[in-house]
Every structure is written in structure tokens, then in C-alpha cells.
């Protein structure tokens, strides 16, 4: 049965997306072991690794990466569980769910810029404090941002990753029948905390494992956010590697390649460790099953509420600071608002960004649509296989699909760049789309697979028995009931494409200017006003697509309220 046409979807997806990564990894490993013909390096050696280890600040940089990357991921996971345990399911949560889309579409770099302006000693909070209380008269010499311990970087990453984990959890929760479990637990006298800890958290974590791994990999290897919010002397390992890749001394690219490979190694080790720990946590079960009820859930609600309030406050104020700056003429400490307003930044920005906007939009849309088709095909193939072999485990093969999210971009992009040039494929638009697809596809899969797998196939059987056409049934019954998650998946894919910075840079050789590359380039300058305009536009694009994803199904289901309940 492997000849069935649907079977080609997962294969195609894997082939198309794994090839560049494997080639890219190889192209990075060769220089890491001393082979770099363009620089006259033809001898294999471990010298690049020794150079990396001896590079000043290497040890601290690695430590920074581990502390901030792992720390932020674990914090984000804990906060996600806290918020869910405290409030899910509830009316308030449905409102929060709607807020998640715009929050997810906030680009990391824009968020870091916004948070920075909020909490630095000359930032908005202190400006407001000064105008209310007269203190501080001059900006304090406090380390509230870019501190050498990585606290601010960890905070920014935590705030950025929590909504993603929440979003992924919400996709899995309906299948876990939380309401019923809570009802059952409560009737036995157990408190919310206890029920969540024992009955809901373990299966939920199992479903969240992949997104959590992606969060860890991202946290360990992120460059743009670490540049804005991280320690500076030395920076994190990812920033250090990126710097080695761009150093004027071209030979530093060899230890750079070794550093990129090390980043991959460290990431894999961390993931293995987390996996091992999650296995070991089962040993705790006897200790947990001691009959205690913990019926008081006040503390849980408090912790969940505080995290939620703090997160929402930061997102809203970060957004507000960007809006304020984009309309600013001049705004100095300690004025609570801009002292001069101006439309100049918007006029300059909008006048110049149409080309970049169009490129961002078309690349995002095309890559999200292609990803969606491939994901739908692969998922439908799963349904077919499960019907044939009831014990079929779909997870194993699809782990490969998530590889791009688990491998630091820095570890293979350099190799990809060289191979593309070698094949004469660099600088072509479809190659750019392809490179985005590598990252868009897993996210589309992450967002759609839950609801798609949870679909009750009895509807399909019913449809088949009525129409006799698999196509019609799939299109008019299954898809029709899944419009909402499909729209969400498309919007997520689009947002992921918009946010791509390094791939756009590496693939295009600078010939592709998207809103994101323009925004990052402007962020290296000294004009907060124009940076704010680009950061806002970068945010607006995915937001519009998310809105469409919300409104279109609502319109589609206006006469079929029952269908819209199906998530």
C-alpha cells in the first residue's frame, strides 16, 4: 500500500526539508574541522575547536546561554501550567485565547525593544514614576536591562515563550477532557492543584514535549533577542558565534563554525536531559499518590493571576511604547509622554516600505499555503495508515519534521548558503520561500495536528456513506468542520515566515529586504522613532492574517453554530 499517493506527502515533506539541513550541517562541520578552501585551509584538524575553547569569554558565554535558554524555557513551562491550572476552563480563558493570537504575532526583536524601553533606568516606568513622585530626578545607574547575569534576557524569553506554550497547550487540552477530570477530582475532594498535578499535567506535558523542545532549542540559540536584552561582556554563545562568523579576521570563521556545531551539541544534550528527567519524574508518582487532597487552591489562583497580569501588562506597555515612539518628535527623560509629536517617521517609513511589505506578504502567504497543503496531506495519510494498522505510531516519523526547530539555525545556515551559491540557486525568490518553509512547516504541523487528529472520523464515515465520494466528504465535511484550526495554522505559518531574519539574510545574500530585515537593520541605528514604525508594521502584518483567520470561520459558521464548536 506504500504506493498510495497520499504516502508521498510525508516523504516529500521530509525530503524537501531535511536535505538543506543535512547539507547545511555538513557545510558547517567541514570548516569546524579545519576545511575551508576559500581561505586556503585544506587540512583537517581540531584546531578550530581548540581556538574556540581558548577564545576569551567562551566559558562564560556558554554558561550565559545555558542559564538563560534553559531557565527561560523551564520558567515558561511552569508559568503555562500555573495559568492553566488556575483558570482553565473558564469564561475568562476564552477571552484570553483570543488575545493569544496578537500576542504570538509580536516579533521577538520588537518585543525586546519595547521591554527595554519600559524597564531601563531612563525608561517609561521610571519616567512615569518621576512625573508622579519626583523620583528619580536623574536616571539611576541600575542594571535593570542587559545585566551581566542574563536575568533580563531570561525574562524577555520567558514572556515571549509562555504564550506559545499556552497556545500549544490549548490545542491539546480539548482531547484531555479537563472539565470532566476536574469534576471527578473535585467530587472526590481533591483541590485543583492536586488534580492538575496528578491527572492533567502528565498527559499534557507529553503532548507539549515537542513544542517545549522547540522552545529550549530556540532559547539556546537565539541571536537577535540576546543582542538586545542579553549580557554584553561576554554575550551568549549564539551571539559570540554570530560575531565570529562576521569577524573581519576571516579565519575566525573556523572557530565560529566549531561554535555553531557546539551549539547544536549542547542543544541536543539539553533535550536528551529533559527527556530523561521527564521519564524519571514517573518515579515520583508513589510519593504523590499519598491521598492528600490539597483542597485549597487560593495560592494557585494567586500565582496564576499574578503571572497572567504581569505578562499582559508587559505586552500591552511594550506595544504602547512602540506606538508612542512612532509618533514622537522628541521625548527625553523624565517626560512621561513625548514632548513633541510628529508624523515624520510614519511618512518616511510608509513611503519606503511598500516593496518590503509586498515581499514579506507574498513570501509568508506562499510558504504558509504550501506548508498547509503538505501538512494536510501528511495528516490525512496518517488517518489512512491508522485505519489500516490500528497500532500505528505516527509520532516517530514526524519527529524528523520538527528537526528544523530543534537545530540551531546558526548551525546549518552557513553551510546552506555556500551550497546554494554552489548550485547557482541563491537569490531566487522560490528558494527564499523554500527556506522559510523549513521553519513554517513544523509550526503549521504543531498547530494543526492536534485538532486534526482529534477529529471524529465517524463524521467521515457518515459522509462517505451518504456521498460515496472521499473527496467530497473530505472537503465538505472534514475541512468544513476544521476551518478554524486550519485558519489558525495558516496564520501561525505566516507569522513564522514574517519573523525569519537569519534565513532571509543568508539565502538572499542581502538581496531580499523584508520588513524584518529592514527593522533589524534600523534597530542598529539611533532613531527609535523609525525603528518603532518598522517594528509595528512587522507586528501588524501577522496580526491582520490572524484576524482574518478568526473572522472568516466566524462568517463561514454564521448559520452553523454547532460546527463552530468543533475545534
Amino acid at each position: 500500500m506504500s504506493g498510495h499517493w497520499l504516502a508521498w506527502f510525508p516523504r516529500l515533506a521530509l525530503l524537501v526539508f531535511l536535505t538543506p539541513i543535512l547539507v547545511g550541517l555538513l557545510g558547517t562541520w567541514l570548516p569546524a574541522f579545519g576545511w575551508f578552501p576559500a581561505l586556503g585551509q585544506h587540512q583537517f584538524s581540531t584546531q578550530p575547536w581548540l581556538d574556540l575553547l581558548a577564545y576569551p569569554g567562551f566559558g562564560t558565554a556558554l554558561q550565559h546561554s545555558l542559564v538563560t535558554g534553559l531557565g527561560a524555557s523551564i520558567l515558561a513551562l511552569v508559568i503555562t501550567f500555573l495559568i492553566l491550572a488556575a483558570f482553565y476552563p473558564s469564561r475568562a480563558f476564552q477571552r484570553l485565547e483570543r488575545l493569544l493570537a496578537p500576542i504570538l504575532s509580536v516579533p521577538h526583536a520588537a518585543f525586546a525593544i519595547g521591554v527595554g524601553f519600559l524597564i531601563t533606568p531612563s525608561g517609561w516606568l521610571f519616567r512615569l514614576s518621576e512625573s508622579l513622585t519626583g523620583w528619580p530626578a536623574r536616571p539611576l545607574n541600575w542594571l535593570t536591562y542587559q545585566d551581566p547575569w542574563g536575568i533580563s534576557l531570561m525574562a524577555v524569553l520567558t514572556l515571549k515563550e509562555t504564550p506559545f506554550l499556552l497556545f500549544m497547550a490549548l490545542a491539546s487540552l480539548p482531547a484531555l477532557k479537563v472539565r470532566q477530570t476536574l469534576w471527578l477530582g473535585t467530587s472526590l475532594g481533591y483541590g485543583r492543584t492536586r488534580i492538575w498535578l496528578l491527572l492533567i499535567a502528565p498527559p499534557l506535558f507529553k503532548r507539549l514535549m515537542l513544542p517545549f523542545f522547540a522552545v529550549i532549542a530556540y532559547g539556546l540559540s537565539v541571536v537577535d533577542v540576546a543582542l538586545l536584552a542579553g549580557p554584553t561582556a561576554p554575550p551568549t554563545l549564539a551571539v559570540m558565534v554570530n560575531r565570529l562568523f562576521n569577524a573581519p579576521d576571516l579565519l575566525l570563521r573556523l572557530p565560529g563554525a566549531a561554535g555553531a556545531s557546539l551549539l547544536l551539541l549542547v542543544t541536543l544534550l539539553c533535550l536528551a536531559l529533559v527527556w530523561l528527567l521527564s521519564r524519571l519524574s514517573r518515579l515520583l508518582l508513589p510519593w504523590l499518590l499519598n491521598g492528600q487532597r490539597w483542597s485549597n487552591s487560593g495560592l494557585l489562583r494567586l500565582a496564576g493571576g499574578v503571572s497572567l497580569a504581569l505578562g499582559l501588562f508587559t505586552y500591552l506597555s511594550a506595544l504602547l511604547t512602540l506606538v508612542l515612539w512612532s509618533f514622537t518628535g522628541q521625548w527625553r527623560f523624565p517626560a512621561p509622554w513625548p514632548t513633541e509629536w510628529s508624523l515624520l517617521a510614519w511618512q518616511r517609513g510608509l513611503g519606503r516600505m511598500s516593496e518590503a511589505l509586498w515581499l514579506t506578504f507574498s513570501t509568508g502567504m506562499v510558504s504558509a499555503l504550501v506548508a498547509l497543503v503538505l501538512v494536510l496531506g501528511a495528516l490525512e495519510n496518517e488517518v489512512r495508515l491508522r485505519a489500516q494498522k490500528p497500532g500505528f505510531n505516527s509520532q516517530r516519523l514526524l519527529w524528523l519534521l520538527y528537526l528544523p526547530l530543534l537545530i540551531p539555525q546558526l548551525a546549518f545556515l552557513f553551510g546552506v548558503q555556500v551550497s546554494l551559491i554552489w548550485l547557482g540557486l541563491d537569490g531566487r525568490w522560490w528558494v527564499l520561500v523554500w527556506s522559510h518553509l523549513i521553519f513554517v512547516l513544523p509550526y503549521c504541523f504543531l498547530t494543526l495536528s492536534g485538532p486534526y487528529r482529534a477529529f471524529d472520523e465517524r463524521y467521515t464515515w457518515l459522509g462517505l456513506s451518504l456521498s460515496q465520494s472521499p473527496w467530497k466528504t473530505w472537503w465538505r465535511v472534514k475541512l468544513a468542520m476544521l476551518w478554524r484550526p486550519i485558519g489558525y495554522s495558516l496564520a501561525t505559518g505566516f507569522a513564522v515566515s514574517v519573523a525569519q531574519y537569519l534565513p532571509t539574510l543568508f539565502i538572499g545574500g542581502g538581496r531580499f529586504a523584508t520588513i524584518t530585515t529592514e527593522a533589524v537593520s534600523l534597530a542598529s541605528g539611533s532613531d527609535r522613532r523609525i525603528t518603532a514604525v518598522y517594528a509595528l508594521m512587522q507586528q501588524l502584518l501577522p496580526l491582520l492574517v490572524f484576524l482574518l483567520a478568526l473572522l472568516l470561520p466566524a462568517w463561514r459558521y454564521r448559520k452553523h453554530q454547532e460546527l463552530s464548536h468543533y475545534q
Partner: protein
Amino acid sequence: MKRTLLTALTALALNPAFADLNWPQIEAEARGQTINFHAWGGSEVINDYLQWAADEVAERYGVSLRHVKVTNTGDVVSQVLAEKTAGRAEGGSVDLVWINGENFAAMKSNDLLFGPFTQVLPNYALVDTENKPTTLFDFTTAVDNMEAPWGMAQLVFMYDSALVETPPQSMTELLNFARNSPGAVTYPAPPSFYGTTFLKQAMLELADDPAPFYEEVAESDFESLTAPLWAFLDELHPLMWRQGRTFTSGAPEMKLLLNDGEISLSLSFNPNDASNAIAIGELPESVRTYVHEGGTIGNTHFVAIPYNSSQTEGAMVVANFLMSPEAQARKADVDVWGDPTVLAMDKLTQSQRALFEALPRGAATLSDAELGTVLREPHASWVAALERAWQERYAN
């Protein structure tokens, strides 16, 4: 004179591409070419200026100029290097790059550049190579006509006159200044070239004899030659912004901090930077420029053509246009960009000179006399050595 001519002739003879080409032919070949000009894109005034230049060369020479906005010239070197790795000897993605210093030295020594070519450009004859030696020696690396001078740079400092009465006139005074107002001083972390320049400036100022810094760095006396610098920094850091435990990424970020009132002194490589920043509202009117008594480091920034560009004619036409009196005068206007010219006023015609004489003087611009002595950049090898030693001490 004879020697220059000889060098130029040798260069021409060595480069068969030019053997049968004259300037009108190059201009004719250039028509219709699209030039990807990779240049830092972090400044809207510079982006605006390049947009103007693009409109001009399109109209005058039929060359279409695309500004590829980069964050870091190292990215561009990486791109060309990746192309060389992959064996792409023509049709490279970079046709022109804004460059100087170590990046130029790296590209030159790794054969990543096209040229020599500037001797063919008509406007190159107007460049002030006699009084601006940095147009011939880029961080002591011989330019050898491999990059076209574009603008002059000199390390200057800025202060907010509303907060500071008299700014420090030397590194020693800077230390005193920091003692009196802790937290008000900082500098960018090397390897940002702003930070490295600050180190070089301090090193030159604090040394008894700067002569050894113009020779290639030697391991034997590096420690003893740089000892005064480290002693100075050891004292300065605890008095700095954030106690020297975190640093800025470059002059643009310091400009933001100056505007925010977090620090009271900043630095720049463009003597007109403060005036321009005031004009566009990035800094308050009270900001002024100053230099240290003993002079400050100056250099030149250039444009170069990568070895694998297939649009060299168009790239040369653009480089020539960027050196033209008209383009240089517009660039020097503080309301536009304020980047000082590389041209010699006495080589210009009356009307060309008038373009420069008509320029308004910015509020925070120093006269040539006030700018004082221009110190030459130390030998290029000091850059890497200083950066590494700094990182070992303060970023380990």
C-alpha cells in the same frame, strides 16, 4: 608624481580589462546595469542620501542602484567569501560595498576585491590625497587603488551642554570627569569598531611615545606598551555607566543614551553627527561636539568592488558619482548627512567650490581648526590584538 604615474600604468597593464577601455566606454557599458550596493542601513539620513544618489545615477547614467541595507559589513565579507567557497567567480551578489579598515584589509589580502580601479575614475583626481593621507592608507593598509574614497571620519566626542559645563580634554581628564560624575561615561564594547577606536585613542594618548603603534604588533612588547591603557581602564570601569559591567553596542546606542540622559558624553566618527542629530530631532539642541587636546584618530571610509561582481562598469560609475563635487557637497550638508568630503578644495573649479562654501554650519559643528590634529590609525594588526586582550580582561 612620476611614481604615482608609474603605479597607475603598471596597474593598468596588469589589469587587461582596462587595457582597451576608456571612461566613455565604461559609462556606455554601465548603462542598464543594476548595482547592488551593500551599505549599513541603520541611519535614515544615510538611507535617504543613497536614495537620492540612486535617483541621480539612474537619470544621468542609466544605472540602477539598489541599496542593500546591512547591519554589519562583516555580513557582506561573509557573503563574498561564501561565494568564493562555492566557486562563484562571476555574477556575485555584491557589486559595491561600503568598507574600510580591517574589513578592507581582510578582503584585500584574501583576493576578494576587484581592481585596482580608482585611477580610471575621473573624479579620483579631485581627491585630497596630499593632505588626507588616510585616503591612500586605510588603517595603514595601502589602498593601492582597490577602494574609492567616499568620506572622511574623525573620532569626536559629544556632550550635553545643559548637563556638563566643560567636557574633558584628554583621557586623563575623562577619568577625573568619571570620578566626579560616576555612571555618566561609557564606551562601546570591542569588537565594535567604535569601542576599538576608543581603545586605540586611549592607547595613543596615554603612551609616552606612539611610534611603536605604527609598526606591526609584536608579542614581545605588547604587554609593556599597553600597560598604561589597562591601568587606565581598570580605574575607569568601576566609575562608568553600569559600573562597566555591561557595555553599549556602538555609537548609535550611545547617542540614544545621551538623549535619554543616562550618560553625559558620547562619541562619533562623523564630526557633523551631533549637528545632524539635532537637525533631525535625535538629540537636543544643547548637545555640542569636542575633541581631545592632543588630537583624535581620523580615517577615511571607502567603497570597493568585490572580485566577482559582473557589473564592474556600473559599480565604477557609481563610485565615481559618489566622489563627484555635487554628491560630496550634498553629503557634507549637515541637514542631509553631514559626512565630510574627501575632495581637495583647491582642485575644484570656482563653481564646484561654491557648492561647499554655501553649506550651512551646524549648531554643534567644530571648525577645522577646532577639530585639531588628526591622529593616524595604528597599524591594522593592533586591532585584533587589542580586542583580544580587552576581551580577556573585561569580558571573560
